């Protein structure tokens, strides 16, 4: 187990470096950063001087080396646009994204798993079919349109919920939280539903599919034959055995929640990292883009590791590989 984790750690470092390299090589295609850093009247000489000062004229390898060296020490440089350390900007924004993703993940799991189990058990039921169809309608529209429609209904027509932002936040050390104020909690509702919808459907359908298969296996039939009550069969035996693929996909999906938050955050002007990143793209703010991508890679690497370790814990058969 320990050697397994160590091996994964080494691999993870390689993954991070590769991400950094790919991310960095991508920037030259995004556009010219200088134009967003100066006004229209700024002369070409001044523009070129700025390019030089930022080290953008150096060969690619030199730029990447400098970036990797600083990044390894946790320094991602200064934002071109905000003229502040990138670390500070991202840390300020991280709490917003993590809170949103967390609430969405809880929503997706809390609704997705029971709904999946229910639709599997009551396969032919009217309600099951209704849930299945409705969940499909939800994923048939682009996220940004769903977000806008929710804003339109609950923000503009009914005026129940705020249309943008995080509401009032409370700062606890470096962490700002919206969980402690009424407006903060109200602000969370629409964005988290928008973000969770997709994952919810995916988890539900996956749980249902796996559950249906497991319910037909011999060992469930044996369990029933042994006279165990339905409850025990369904939840102790069947659900437990659906968990392997569910953990894989759910793990990956939870990670991609953070990434998918980009679009939700833009629609709701949610002041998280995703919004910071999407604006950094249009402003060609390379230090922010680089730091964000490396950070996202870091999250994913961690999630992947946890998923793999859980695999071991949940399915004893896999441990045979280790031997």
């Amino acid at each position: 187990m320990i050697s397994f984790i160590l091996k994964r750690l080494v691999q993870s470092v390689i993954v991070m470096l590769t991400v950094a390299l790919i991310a960095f090589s991508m920037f030259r295609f995004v556009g010219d950063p200088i134009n967003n850093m100066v006004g229209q009247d700024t002369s070409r000489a001044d523009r070129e001087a700025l390019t030089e000062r930022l080290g953008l004229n150096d060969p690619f390898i030199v730029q990447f080396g400098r970036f990797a060296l600083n990044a390894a020490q946790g320094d991602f440089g200064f934002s071109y646009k905000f003229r502040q350390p990138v670390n500070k900007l991202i840390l300020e924004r991280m709490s917003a994204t993590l809170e949103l993703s967390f609430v969405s993940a809880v929503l997706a799991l809390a609704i997705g798993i029971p709904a999946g189990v229910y639709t599997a058990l009551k396969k032919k039921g009217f309600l099951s079919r209704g849930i299945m169809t409705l969940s499909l309608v939800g994923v048939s529209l682009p996220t940004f349109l769903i977000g806008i429609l929710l804003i339109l209904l609950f923000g503009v027509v009914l005026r129940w919920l705020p249309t943008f932002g995080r509401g009032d936040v409370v700062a606890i050390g470096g962490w700002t939280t919206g969980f402690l104020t009424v407006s903060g909690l109200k602000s969370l509702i629409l964005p988290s539903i928008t973000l969770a919808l997709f994952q919810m459907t995916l988890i539900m359908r996956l749980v249902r599919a796996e559950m249906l298969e497991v319910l037909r296996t011999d060992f469930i039939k044996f369990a029933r034959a042994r006279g165990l009550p339905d409850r025990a069969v369904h939840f102790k035996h069947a659900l437990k055995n659906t968990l392997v693929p569910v953990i894989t996909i759910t793990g990956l999906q939870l990670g991609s929640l953070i990434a998918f938050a980009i679009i939700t955050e833009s629609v709701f002007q949610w002041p998280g990292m995703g919004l910071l990143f999407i604006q950094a793209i249009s402003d060609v703010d390379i230090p922010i883009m680089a730091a964000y991508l490396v950070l996202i890679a870091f999250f994913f690497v961690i999630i992947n590791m946890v998923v793999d370790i859980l695999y071991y814990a949940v399915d004893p058969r896999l441990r045979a590989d280790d031997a």
Partner: protein
Amino acid sequence: MKLRTGLLVAVAAAAIAVAAPAQAKTFKFAFQGDLSSLDPHSLNESFLLATLGNVYEGLVLYGPDLEIMPGLAESWKLLTPTTWEFKLRQGVKFHGGQDFNADDVIFSWQRTLSEGSDQKVRGGQIKNITKVDDHTIVVETPAPNPILVQDLPYLLIMDKEWSEENNATNATSAAGDNTGNYANLNANGTGPFMIESHKADVKTVLKRHEGYWKDIEGNVTEVEFTPIKEAPTRVAALISGELDMVYPVPVQDWERLDDADGVSALTGPEARTIFIGFDQGRDELLYSNIKGKNPFKDQRVRAAFVHAVDLEAIKEKIMRGAATPTGLLAAPQINGFVESLNTPYEYNPEKSKALLAEAGYPDGFEVTLDCPNNRYVNDEKICQAVTSMLAKVGVKVDLLAQPKSKYFGKVLSTSGYDTSFYLLGWTPGSMDVENVLSSLIVCQDEENKRGMFNLGNYCNPKVDELTAAIGSETDQAKRTAMIEEAFKIVKDEVGYMPIHQQPIAWGVSDRVTVNQRADNGLDYRYVTVK
């Protein structure tokens, strides 16, 4: 009993709550972009300058209609063609309590020329400033400059002592090695509003500066600014009543705003002109099926293009009646605007076809139109409409619409003007036509930094000569005559295809009244909350 006491307490608390903050008048608004810095010299961009214009002030100020008013200078006069004397206002204090004096002006001017400053163009209008006494200065310009004060409203004045104390004597640079970081997140101006809190790209709160040297028209005491990037979200936040004002509002939503309760669209023409330029410099057109020559060098081809484009249709359908079709590259709000030349070219596709045939292209030709898709109001849609209109006279246009960072990365001088046909918009920073001529119309001149936005290199020596004279002519009548002559030549030669003045649209709640300036600037001095 207990219940009643509780009730009484509640009533009392409510009474206090109503009584105490009766004075607080909070104004909440959203804009599509963000306030990237609080340093007034860090970026020469209109939203940043208009916003910081409430915190810092220049020697002169913009009035509600963009007219020049005395600001930190009470009066000014021309001593010789190249020297001006400014009398500075007495008794003005910065937010931190420091006195305003001549040293602050000299310091701020020098700061605009420091490394990291993006105000070098403004600062460069001045050659030297000498202090006569604490409240009198003499400003020297490199050449006679009749429009010097036009350039001063956004040369914002900082306090010398404060900047030195906080190690902010250089402008905040985008490169990490700056020393001016304190001014990036803190401000100390003389303006009517102070920064209460500022979290870049999230929220900025400003409070009224009680010691401001002048009474202001509005009654607002607190301003809350939030950037909201997506237009539908912005409009929703206004209609739902969460915000008092949002801008810009997409043209198609104007009617909806007017129909909705409690909000309306406040609209007007912006001082920005949208136009299309032709590559007239290269001997062979890039991105075209015509090889070995450049059709745009032929005036008849350019004329054929302008006659093929129906500006009224663009106004009606794309801009929902909100734009002002134009024949000139300068808007009416711009100093030196020529009314007689502002009539658009006639829409006449038959004439266009005839001209193309006459020039040797009876079946048209192919060309690529470069277009931004997130810079101007409906920029991409205008390009699409132009593409479709040109298709009707046989010209096949490939539309390359890109985000502004990619678009500008391609077409500007730093990339060697890599375009043959492009859409661009221009508001002269000085609000004077001289800037239009010297940026867009004179021949490209790398050395003297002129014609740098003349991306297609329209070039006529006579116009260059006139532009140079206009820059230093102090006799208004002579200057006007020369301006007319220069623009007449450009128009007759079809140097450009002007499209329209783009509209400004603000969504405003009925709870507030605001003053809309033609440069899209929001001045909190004129905000009243009912």
